[in-house]
């Protein structure tokens, strides 16, 4: 990318952690959803976030690319304070891929169109280059033969894999997954998790809100358990799942495992 010269201090730094969250608070009206979250995601790390519904894990994830505006606190993405009004949020977002529970593919475009839109309109890539990148990523998620299809003609699992390919086509430095398999029929979950596992093995920095304990155990470098707007436990997934230290973690895991 050959961007305009930007003021100093808002350029990403290679030596900074991918994501650094410091004392993050978020309220919806009177209801405080995040009550002071601090955590760091190192480059290349796969961090899974689990917790009961309403614990604030989706809000936390959505704060990282500012789909939710935090009430207070600091979020550094590659060393850039994204809450600084000087920072161009759209530019930050091109470096952060986001995958939603409901896929959110653009229904009026083909698969290829979905993958090319932002490449052309945001990164300024030409059509040929965008399509080439798109095809590489479609092949990666195992859907090279569906580039001409419309989202409505794909299964949920295929749609989610297209959504992942769409994010990857922006060449992001990190990916956020917001319960990526929760809206899928059980038999379609495996394909999506397989794609995510491949990404993790390639060294992609990932933050994954999920209910898939198996994925968290096998692929995750770290597991964070959240409850009531706070990080309750944060550690090695195998450790946390086998030997939860906090009573709240124990209670939650006994229900889902």
């Amino acid at each position, binding site marked *: 990318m050959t961007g305009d010269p930007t003021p100093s201090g808002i350029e990403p730094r290679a030596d900074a952690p991918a994501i650094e969250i410091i004392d993050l608070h978020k309220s919806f009206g009177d209801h405080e959803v995040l009550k002071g979250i601090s955590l760091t995601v190192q480059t290349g790390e796969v961090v899974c976030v689990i917790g009961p519904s309403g614990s604030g894990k989706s809000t936390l994830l959505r704060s990282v690319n500012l*789909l939710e505006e935090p009430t207070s606190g600091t979020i550094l993405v590659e060393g850039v304070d994204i809450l600084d009004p000087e920072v161009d949020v759209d530019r930050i977002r091109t470096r*952060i891929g986001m995958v*939603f529970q*409901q896929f959110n593919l*653009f229904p009026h475009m083909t698969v290829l169109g979905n993958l090319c839109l932002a490449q052309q309109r*945001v990164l300024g890539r030409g059509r040929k280059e965008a399509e080439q990148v798109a095809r590489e990523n479609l092949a990666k998620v195992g859907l090279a033969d569906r580039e001409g299809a419309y989202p*409505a003609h794909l299964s949920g699992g295929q749609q989610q894999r297209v959504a992942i390919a769409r994010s990857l086509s922006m060449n992001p430095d990190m990916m956020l997954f917001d319960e990526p398999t929760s809206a899928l029929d059980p038999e379609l979950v495996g394909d999506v998790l397989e794609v995510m596992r491949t990404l993790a093995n390639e060294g992609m920095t990932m933050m994954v809100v999920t209910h898939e304990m198996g994925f968290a155990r096998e692929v995750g470098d770290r597991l964070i358990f959240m409850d009531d707007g706070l990080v309750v436990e944060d550690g090695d997934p195998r450790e946390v799942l086998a030997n939860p230290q906090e009573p709240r973690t124990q209670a939650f895991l006994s229900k889902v495992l």
Partner: protein
Amino acid sequence: MAMRRTTRRKLGRVAMYVLFVAVLAVVVLSADWDRFAQYFLRWDIAREQFPQIITVALRNTLVFTVVSFVGGLVVGTVMALMKLSSIGPYRWFATAYIELFRGLPALLTIFAFAYMLPIAFGVRLPFAPVGAGLLGLVVVAGAYMAEVIRAGIQAVPKGQTEASRSLGMSPMKTMFFVVLPQGLRIIIPPLTNEFVLLLKDTSLLFIAGSTIITKELTTFARDATTTTSNGTVLVMAAMLYLLVTIPLTRVVAYLERRMARSR
């Protein structure tokens, strides 16, 4: 009385048909059809209207409809976006605009644009006098379409905006490449309906006055009625309106059925 329910229902239906046919027969038989035909169905007068009733009147009606529809679509989209804006004054202006021009009779708005505007600003719009009246019709169409378009935009799921913004697309790009294309698709049936309403409302342009070459169907028919002292041309105009509107309403019905199926 041991009459079965189905039998009673059948008898009731027969009675309804008989009554309907009787009323129809009374109306048809009591009318003086010869006199009616003399005033409204004169073939010799009808033949004299060709080809102008098609090449001038119907053509102008269609051109005015398309112009006001396209103009209304542009104005309506701008107003819808302003109404959904986070900037207060934009919202207030759009609300005032929509309330004003939906609250006034279209005839008055056209009159205002045709006569008040040129006097106030000392300008003559192109294609006077009909051009100014047409501008009034665009303004009215824009007010009605603004609400339809706003509803269409709001019907697009929020996740679409979130996905687009997450890819780094600006609010403007998101609106034009992601939200509007989907919103406009949703409102094709009500917009087609709006087109039919506009087609009929072009008849109100007579208030703006016209020259020989800018007459639309209703003006043409009114003037012809005066010159021939006969209502035949009014009947012809009515039939020409229906010739366009009935197929269009069928199209709307078809689109609505197709939309319902694709959900």
